[in-house]
């Protein structure tokens, strides 16, 4: 293989407030290769690629594309040099058609002034033909599937003349079939058009399947660059995680439970997503007291909707959820909470906190009508509230801020601690926890894991969703895998390997269930 360098990072660092997202990264990408950039959430992969696409300006270091140094970082300069990027969140205008999105910014004109609808369609048609990515040029983007939208994104970058294509977590939203199609497209364009592909992912089997070389990032640093042929998933995983030594042992005791009753019983649940499409399709499971049930699955397979439904934030179309013996059908979040449920939501910034409010307010929410904090449920006892906030933030070790600081200015780890502190101090027998440690630092992660385990040991029933398999393995008593809103298997962490479970997370089924 020719190893002509096409993109080169030299000592690139990127400092965000409070976070060093990239630390002294030097990397060469070769022309015509598929380069996989792997790492866990928050390892700095996307930041590095956003720099290459000109969306971020690095704090220090330099980037060279095709021998030319980047003088200022802007998407237009990156496009000029042939870089294209398919973002994780698509950059498409929903009300425009496929063709209109593809030519956006470089529209064909007739008579020098008017938008040329025919030519736009012709351009799209020829791109479709050239690259074998079938889409209907006249369809509105809002009306087509996510997989097709991704194709539009790819075609858009190709139309802009990109020969270096960055794909940011392209498979996160795809079905396995769509993933296969995407990969065959990647192979073809690399082979036929000599394109260079950089693919960001954290799925190791994809790295093995598609890439020529792989770079592993951890904590903002590029820890290793290898030829894919020389490594396997296990080696990559240990380089990526590298934290087996870091995380201490959890205190897992026999839970204190008087009975082994079911606390959450979900039967044949059907839930639709925001677009009204089915997300959870006939899912049944039971969580008992004193156990953590982990749900493993690729994001977007109905986990979010499931959790929201169980927490009373989303209505379900069919089936039932029974919590502590009561059906929650038709209940809102407040009524579900009254049954003895606390909920750590997956997206803390949009759901878990009020960012402009201070730590005190965020800790007291839901308790403001307790006699301790209010007279006749009306007059707020500000002093008692502040006293409590101080106690709690000390107990849960919320750092970097006083209780008057706006929560929005806290680091991810501390913000999550605020959420966990509030929810866990409701002392409820049932906990619903989603992505408890996403984007938090190792220290906070360890603390939160221990807090969750303590709750289990105290006899709580815990339903845990996480995209982090290590986390699920570390915490869960039982694991279920979900795929497209259905359960595909049930395991205990010690009976199945992490590499094996991904089979079930991508639609494989246990023989008995099939």
């Amino acid at each position: 293989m020719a190893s002509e360098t096409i993109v080169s990072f030299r000592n690139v660092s990127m400092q965000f407030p409070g976070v060093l997202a990239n630390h002294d990264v030097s990397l060469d990408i070769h022309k015509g290769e598929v380069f996989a950039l792997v790492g866990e959430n928050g390892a700095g992969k996307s930041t590095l690629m956003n720099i290459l696409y000109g969306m971020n300006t690095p704090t220090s270091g330099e980037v060279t594309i095709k021998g030319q140094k980047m003088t200022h970082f802007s998407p237009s300069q990156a496009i000029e040099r042939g870089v294209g990027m398919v973002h994780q969140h698509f950059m498409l205008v929903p009300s425009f058609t496929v063709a209109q999105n593809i030519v956006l910014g470089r529209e064909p004109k007739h008579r020098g002034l008017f938008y040329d609808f025919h030519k736009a369609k012709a351009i799209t048609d020829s791109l479709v033909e050239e690259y074998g990515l079938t889409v209907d040029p006249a369809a509105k983007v809002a009306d087509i599937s996510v997989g097709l939208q991704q194709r539009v994104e790819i075609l858009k970058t190709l139309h802009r003349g990109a020969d270096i294509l960055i794909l940011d977590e392209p498979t996160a939203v795809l079905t396995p079939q769509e993933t296969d199609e995407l990969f065959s497209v990647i192979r073809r364009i690399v082979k036929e058009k000599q394109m260079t592909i950089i693919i960001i992912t954290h799925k190791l089997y994809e790295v093995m399947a598609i890439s020529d070389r792989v770079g592993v990032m951890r904590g903002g640093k590029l820890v290793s660059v290898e030829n894919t042929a020389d490594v396997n998933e296990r080696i990559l995983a240990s380089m990526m995680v590298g934290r087996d030594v870091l995380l201490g042992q959890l205190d897992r005791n026999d839970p204190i439970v008087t009975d082994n009753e079911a606390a959450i019983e979900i039967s044949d649940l059907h839930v639709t997503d925001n677009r009204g499409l089915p997300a959870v399709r006939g899912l049944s499971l039971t969580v008992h007291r004193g156990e953590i049930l982990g749900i493993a699955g690729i994001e977007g397979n109905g986990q979010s909707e499931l959790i929201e439904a169980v927490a009373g934030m989303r209505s379900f179309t069919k089936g039932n959820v029974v919590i502590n013996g009561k059906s929650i059908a038709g209940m809102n979040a407040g009524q579900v909470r009254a049954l003895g449920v606390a909920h750590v939501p997956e997206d803390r910034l949009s759901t878990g906190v009020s960012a402009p409010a201070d730590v005190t307010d965020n800790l007291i929410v839901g308790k403001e009508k307790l006699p301790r904090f209010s007279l006749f449920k009306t007059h707020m006892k500000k002093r008692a509230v502040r006293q409590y906030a101080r106690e709690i933030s000390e107990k849960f070790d919320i750092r970097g801020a006083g209780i008057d600081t706006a929560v929005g200015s806290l680091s991810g780890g501390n913000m999550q601690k605020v959420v966990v502190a509030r929810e866990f101090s409701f002392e409820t027998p049932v906990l619903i926890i989603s992505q408890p440690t996403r984007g938090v630092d190792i220290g906070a992660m360890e603390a939160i894991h221990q807090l969750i385990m303590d709750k289990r040991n105290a006899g709580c029933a815990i339903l845990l969703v996480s995209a982090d398999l290590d986390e699920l393995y570390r915490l869960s008593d039982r694991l279920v895998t979900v795929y497209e809103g259905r359960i595909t298997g049930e395991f205990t962490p010690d009976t199945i390997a992490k590499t094996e479970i991904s089979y079930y997370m991508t639609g494989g089924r246990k023989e008995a269930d099939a």
Partner: protein
Amino acid sequence: MKLRKNMSYLLSLFIAVAAAFILGGVIMALSGHDPIEGYTLMFQGAFGTQRASANTLAKASTLCLCGLATAIAAHAGIFNVGGEGQLYLGAMASAWVGARLTGTSPWIAVPLCLLAAMLAGGIYAWIPGMLKVKMKVNEVITTIMLNSAAIYFCSFLTNGPLKTAEKGVSAGTDAIDPAFMFSRIVRRSSLTESIFLAAIIALVVWYLMKKSTTGFQMKLTGENERFAKYSGIKSSKLALWSMVASGAICGLVGMFEIFGLHGRFIESVSSEFYFDGMLVAMIMRYNPVGIILMSLFFGAMEIGGAAMELNASIPSSLIVLIQSIIIFFMAAEQGITAAFQARRARKKAAKALQKGDAA
């Protein structure tokens, strides 16, 4: 932290006001008037005599109630721009009830009129509130539309079905029983007993917003509705009721105008009082105490401005100019601060994106 934030806000407010006054002075000088004389006359016009001070206080109470009406809805994240219409309907309802009850005891009639005003204003605010909460129809636009509808409706009633038969009255509804009128506290001023009711309302609104558990829940609803719902707060209900409360207050403002000054419904019951109050509320970022203080300031400017025009023939519209310049300055300040915050948020968002949990 909180104190420092408030201090920096007060400082920028002070600078904005000072700058607006200096600009106002420059404008005066350019148009051939003596700024010192102008401002002196303005101050005297607002506070020089007992009557002037009374008028200032009366003006301030109207501004303050309108401002608080804006604030209470904004506190729960709903924007009531329709206060003017609610004010008209409140005035109309109370004038109608007042005229019907002529001859009954004021102890029965006045409370009924108060109730009528609150109901009319409240129900008229309920409509856009309901549309917002249930259907997510933009309340800013619906309330603007409903303003005009209400004003035209009142104009129709005044010139049509409810036009008084009384001679010598060009346009207006039947007069209400003089026994129902609020009496004047200072002779020949527009300060009436309604100021006490206004004070009570202000106190209740302040308590509700700042000290009560309901106010706390409203605040969280206004800040992040999804979070409020997740926390089990009945956010839709709160938003709707705060809108209704806002409308009820506006209705009362209308009633105070009728029962304090006019004695019957007339079409010029308000000249965009609500919008003035809304601007006060916006400048003070919906802080109730701030609104009360700023209303006094704006009230003094408006009353003083009229005197200034009378005595030095400096157009009182200069006051409107100064007021809007203050708002522009404050909006810019807010914007610059917001730009800083946005920059921080952008970085945060980029960080979040990198961590894969951007919204």
